[in-house]
């Protein structure tokens, strides 16, 4: 248990430290920046296919990302509880 908490603390730190050493950075990760990089190499490239559906706003996109994480986390939580309960009985 102690070891798990320690490991989790390292993961959290790995995510927090960048926020402090890169204060001015944008922390983007958007696909738009990829377009820029490809555009630099090949100015004439035109994407030939569009996404069938795009989340209409950043809010809705984050809602869907949260749902994805929540569904996964929900199952992991269920799994952990189920296995611990089973372990106690057995």
């Amino acid at each position, binding site marked *: 248990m102690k*070891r798990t908490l320690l*490991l989790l603390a390292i*993961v959290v730190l790995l995510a927090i430290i960048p926020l402090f050493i890169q204060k001015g950075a944008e922390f983007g990760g958007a696909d738009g920046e990829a377009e820029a990089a490809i555009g630099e190499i090949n100015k004439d490239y035109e994407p030939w296919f569009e996404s069938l559906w795009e989340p209409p706003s950043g809010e809705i996109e984050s809602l869907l990302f949260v749902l994805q*994480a929540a569904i*996964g986390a929900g199952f992991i939580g269920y799994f952990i509880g189920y296995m611990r309960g089973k372990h106690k009985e057995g």
Partner: protein
Amino acid sequence: MKLSWWKCSYFLVAYLMVPKQAFAMHIMEGFLPIEWAIFWWVISIPFIVLGLRSIRKTIEANPETKMMLGLSGAFAFVLSALKIPSVTGSCSHPTGVGLGTVLFGPLAMSVIGTIVLLFQSLLLAHGGLTTLGANAFSMAIVGPFIVYFVFKGAQKIGLSFSLAVFFAAMLGDLGTYVVTSVQLALAFPSEVGGFAASFTKFAGIFALTQIPLAISEGILTVIVMNFLKKYNISELKALRVFSAKEAH
């Protein structure tokens, strides 16, 4: 000797701190020329077919591992939804395929990884359908195969179970991004310098951002694996996760 090691790591850290822009890990919809899109689809499909067969076989032989297959999928689902800031000043997300690969093998994860990618491309406009073949190849095929070979290799040289899991998951995560860089460089070779120049550019953006995230992915995989080791030891043995020595 010791001093030069410190110097090297100092410059590595300093290099990591140079602000760079990065982008979401998957290749965006329409951003691979059509011949490359088809090429990667053709390469990926056989792995997915073999993966479906591998999953069916495992479930038939060990029906009690179904819950763990679900866990592997859920883990990949959560991790690939987490966009985490990195030292380069941009964000990226882990892949989460390491856990399932250690448990069920690389072929099974080619199916699960592709499902995650399909979900993200349809509902989140993250990645794409035309580029799904290429993205599946990097995240759901090469990533898991790296995990598999690193894990087996680490066990063979006698590393502890936790360390083997850590290095396998971490290097699989990093490898995925290297492959993505190769794919982009192949499709977009630079006019000056060709493939190598483009690869350096894409890898500089991708791989550096990914280093801390890969470490996080390795640690998270170890945490879940420690739990499984405590509560699901019989399933782990049925799936032959342990080396001959550790099984006793």
